[in-house]
């Protein structure tokens, strides 16, 4: 046999062996429904854990595990134990996201994927076409529309003809004692997403009665400025009469917010600072972030950890148990995982004993409950818009305190 072909044949033998291996590895479920047996339901997850950007959502997995563990401790759903496989790491890479989805469905043969939390969701079309109920963090358009995909607190991307969540403007209005005559400056990164954010929030704040004299997507999106003077100067002159606006709203990531807010404070700005990303108790561990974000109002779309209630106590207890009894610092990714699992479990519970994709979908259609950690949930409304609930916390003296308690606000039409 010629040498190159021998090498090629060897590779192929390996490939085929692998394929055969995996073929024999699957199967074994007597039930005709993928991933559902008489006493188990198989569920997988997709989460960005390792990334080159240093941003990780890996605690999502812990949150989901905490919720599934409790469900199993309580006897499972309708007598079926949840077999949670743990989350696949997609590394924020679209092709790995798709591959993870394919692996979960075709190799692991899961019934559902929950949680799915990443900056990319290339696997969405595949999961929807394979009729895999999927629950995750609805920050991407794929959570808005496809029948089998659900956001744990709704679809967070406003679509034309849909609605706009007013939590942020309404909450800030209550901080400022009303929106009338108040001005806000909005700033975002210089890319399409930043532009979209500016567009939506401009509409939202104006609808709530604010003036929006400055709304720009101008900050270089890839190389963070080490000098913010050009931006702060313009912002500080943008308010009525060339003065500073009452509030500066940043729609950017944490490192950018740190830079911008520090620069604003150094320039003597005393107004309100707010952003939607910096609710992370981990930020309190460092002096630099504690100082930079001191006084900042942070928007969140679930119950703050500082709030008290049976659901929150249960959450903390579950997470502690799943973390092996250790007191881990809580973060929003745990909440994402926990509430994704919770939404899946709640719908599956209603689907009854005969759990199939059809029965799950039927149960989802018209599903609603109230008073959860993400407010009042309703499907299929959640596949078109956010549940519309949120709170404002303020970082003060090294700890977060609830500035505006968690509640749900009526949305406005988006267009």
């Amino acid at each position: 046999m010629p040498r190159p072909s021998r090498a090629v044949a060897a590779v192929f033998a390996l490939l085929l062996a692998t394929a055969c291996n995996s073929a024999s590895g699957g199967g074994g479920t007597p039930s005709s429904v993928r991933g559902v047996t008489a006493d188990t339901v198989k569920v997988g997850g997709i989460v960005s854990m390792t990334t080159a950007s240093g941003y990780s959502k890996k605690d999502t997995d812990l949150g989901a595990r905490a919720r599934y563990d409790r469900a199993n401790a309580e006897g499972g759903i309708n007598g079926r134990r949840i077999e949670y496989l743990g989350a696949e790491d997609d590394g924020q890479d679209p092709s790995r996201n798709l591959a993870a989805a394919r692996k979960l469905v075709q190799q692991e043969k899961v019934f559902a994927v929950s949680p799915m939390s990443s900056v990319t969701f290339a696997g969405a079309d595949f999961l929807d076409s394979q009729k895999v109920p999927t629950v995750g963090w609805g920050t991407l358009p794929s959570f808005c529309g496809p029948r089998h995909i659900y956001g744990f607190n709704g679809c967070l991307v406003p679509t034309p003809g849909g609605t706009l969540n007013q939590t942020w403007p309404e909450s800030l209005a209550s901080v400022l004692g009303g929106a009338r005559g108040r001005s806000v400056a909005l700033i975002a990164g210089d890319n399409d997403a930043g532009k979209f954010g500016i567009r939506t929030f401009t509409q939202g704040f104006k609808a709530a009665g604010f003036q929006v004299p400055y709304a720009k997507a101008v900050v270089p999106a890839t190389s963070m400025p080490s000098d913010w003077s050009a931006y702060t100067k313009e912002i500080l002159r943008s308010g009525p009469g060339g003065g500073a606006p009452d509030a500066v709203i940043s729609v950017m990531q944490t490192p950018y917010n740190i830079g911008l807010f520090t620069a604003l404070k150094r320039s003597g700005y005393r107004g309100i600072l707010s952003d939607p990303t910096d609710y992370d108790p981990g930020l309190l561990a460092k002096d630099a972030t504690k100082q930079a974000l001191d006084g900042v109002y942070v928007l969140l779309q679930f119950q703050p950890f500082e709030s008290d209630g049976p659901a929150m106590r249960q959450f903390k207890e579950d997470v502690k148990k799943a973390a092996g009894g250790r007191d881990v610092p809580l973060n929003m990714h745990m909440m994402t995982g926990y509430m994704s699992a919770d939404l899946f479990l709640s719908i599956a519970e209603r689907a009854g004993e005969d759990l199939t994709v059809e029965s799950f979908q039927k149960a989802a259609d018209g599903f609603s409950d109230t008073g959860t950690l993400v407010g009042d949930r309703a499907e299929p409304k959640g596949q078109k818009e956010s549940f519309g609930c949120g709170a404002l916390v303020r970082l003060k003296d090294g700890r977060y305190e609830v500035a505006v308690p968690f509640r749900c606000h009526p949305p406005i039409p988006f267009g």
Partner: protein
Amino acid sequence: MGDLLGFVLSGLVSGALYALLATGLVLSSSASGLFNFAHGATAYLCALAFHELHSGFGWPAVPTALLLVCGGAPALGWGLDRLMFRKLAGVGETAQIVATIGLLVALPAAGLWLVELLERMGAPVQPAENQFGLPGVGPSPAVSWQPLDGVGIDSDQLITWIATALVAAGLWILLRRTRLGLELRASVDDRELTGLRGIDADRLSSIAWMLSSGLAGLAGVLATPLLGLSAHDYTLFLFVSATAAVLGRFVSVPLAFAGGLGLGVLQNLVAGYASFTDDITGLRTAVPFLVLFAGLVVLVRRRRGAGTAAADPPPADHLAGRGRARRWGAWSAAAVLLGAAFYTVTTPFWSGILAQGLAIGIVFMSFTVVTGLGAMVSLAQATFVTGAALVAGLLISHGWPFAAAAAAGTAAAALLGALVALPALRLGGRSLALATLALAFLADQVLFQIGWLRNGDTGWELPRPVAGPVDLGDDRALGLALVLLSAALVALLTRLRGSRWGRAALAVRSAPEAAAASGVSVVRTKLLLFTVSAGLAGFGGVLHASYNTRITATDFTAMTGLVWLAVVVAAGVRRPQFAVVAGLVFAVVPHLMAQYVTESAHLPVILFGLAGLALANDPDGYCAALPSRRAARRAAARAAGTGRTPPEPGRQEPPLPDRQAPPAPAGQAPRAPARRDPPEGARQDPPATAPDAPRKAPPGPRRPEELRAPGAGAAPAAPYPAACAARAAAPGPGGGVRGDGVSDGQPHALELAGVHAGYAGAPVLRGVDLAVRGGEVVLLLGPNGAGKSTLCRVAAGLLRPTGGLVRVRGEDAGRDGAVARARRGVRLAPEGRGIFAGLSVEENLALQLAAADDRDAVYARFPALAARRPVPAGALSGGEQQLLALAPLLQRPPAVLVADEPSLGLAPRVVEEVFRLLTELRDQGTALVLAEERAAEALGVADTVACLAQGEVVWSGPRSEADRDRLAEAYLGTGVRR
């Protein structure tokens, strides 16, 4: 106006980090001639180490930073140089670029893996994710001041600024004012020549890498408060800093430093004033890349032929001359097997993965065109993929059928490729790579931010095509279709390569000037290569997107393109079928690793990054290396059976030909049977101490496939052996080699005995004996191609002989490299001018004459040089250059001087002067070996004459016995005019 001043001043502060990174880039690039894509990754690694040691282990900040910057980072640089870059120095620019790209992903992964391991061992490490506001070396949180209205500065910025300024000043002093710096710059100017001067260029390269890594480490530690622990941000920051390095043309530290500061100012000014950019999304973000691209196009000087990387010689084709079945049989079988596998054994999951691999393989084939055929490194292929898929998706959403949309997408990508190519064509090597990278970022940040093209984060749906009964919605059907399509494309590209156009492309690749002279339009050829490649990438992109059934603008970013290049080059970029293998490996291996090898996400990335190491040994990739290594092994086994060693197909390590039976010489094929060994008398007795048996060319004709292509210089050599043989009937007594290597009780200054040497299995010297004593001139005569220069290279230690002895002053020196030989006192004045063109006259002299007195003596003797002290040596006239090369030798005469054609290209009066100087050198006791074609003048200074023809000394004797007229006629033909 107050604003303007504020922007400029605070821009100067914030530009310090750019300046620091750019300075490190300039240093590594000027040391090893490559753009270190991994520079940012090194910075990240140090930031990570600083974070873990400081925040995790609780070490104090400043000592930790110093330890990392002065110890850890340089050690890393030293290790990388020893393991990787030293080996890569000789294998061409593409492999070098790819190796640093591999490190770009491998280094951060290695750091994170280490943290993971430490964590498992229970070390008090901190998580490396989601870390913001990290402390630097200064106080945390930073203290801030407002020295002027509108100008703010904080302690982190101040520390960065001061550290950077100190480092830049220190570097400038090091490079301009110290001997080490002079040697570093000399080795950049001409690495080989530094070796000939007895300066170890490898050591210099290690030092440069240590310095550069130290600078990266410093940047990493200083940038920790700003960038946190994002490897991605460090790399992006590095690319922005590359702009400053370009402004310094990759050689000037002060310019790069100034460029970095200027970049900070520019960003501030754009942020403050360029309100027109508000309308174009992404334009502000893209400013550094616009400047980078413009800087490259405007500032980079032409060095090599436009647009080409180093003309890497292709690997030997061990299947040359074999039939189609032999060449394609295995590949066809593999394709059939793969196609069949889809419908028999593979599970749905693996069918999908294989189909994906095939789709990406088509994208990878585009590298075969632009890099494999055109030797141009394009880092913008991902842009073409995204562009084509977006256009196709947009059109499909408007109701176009799949085929038409795919064609339109392909055309759009091709158009984009032509647009990218136009300004980039005049660039070469790393400049071209950087320019395409800049354009890729521009596309990501501006073009693909256009709302109607990208359709937000939703992107476009790109359903799988359905044609009649064939529904490619099924992964198996798609896989089979892709197998067929790949086969067709491989066939097409292979045909293309063999076509007139393919030959034109290859011609442009290896010698653009010659190609242009033969009527091949260089620009058109390159433009076409780029266009075809972009179109192919676009076509593959549409297919890949239809595998996903959707395309969004962020699916394939500029960084993806970098990784792709590394994957393809690791497999082999010269043949389209290798690209298919690369695609399959890219898709399949990660899953195999995850399933069977390791759970860690970092380990596969590290392994992938280390593929660069493999490139050092097999620069043509594993697909090409595997079979050719096997072929070589088999041939060796066959040869062992017949007692003959055939030349090795790989070009990396020329084999040591079997000593008893050296392979056939170059260019002898047609004449081999007619050629006779020189009469025994022509050869001096072999040295008694020589371990080898007398060497003879193996008798009889050789099989043609064992013979190399004829060398260009060999053809006119035909008459010489006869003439030499005639003269050789009366060998002279003197000058030749005495068997004992000793004459008159004194060892020879330099002695070559029975030396065999050649290049990559093509022997040139075949048993040369030559000896020279101090104060003696041996004139080496012979026609072009006789082996004079090779002999000089062997004498200088540049070329290691494959057989025979080299002795310097009686000591065996056969294992010396050029540096060791130079340190034994053997100097080579190489063909052309032995000077560092980029260094000034003074610096050239200082390299060899450390003492100022010696230099003053030279200036006193040669006022012409004194007058031009600060002038770069490259700007001197030919005669002055030769004077500059010889002057330090006169001042400090070496034991042996080997001069290769010292009179080449000089005016007759200058030649006279040169020979006079050489005579003077001889009178000072130097042993001279003079290789010359201008026999008439040279005979005047010679004591002994040796006639070299076809790699052998066919006659040698004292000058008195060398009949001037007959010599001239016989050896030099029309070379001497009277």
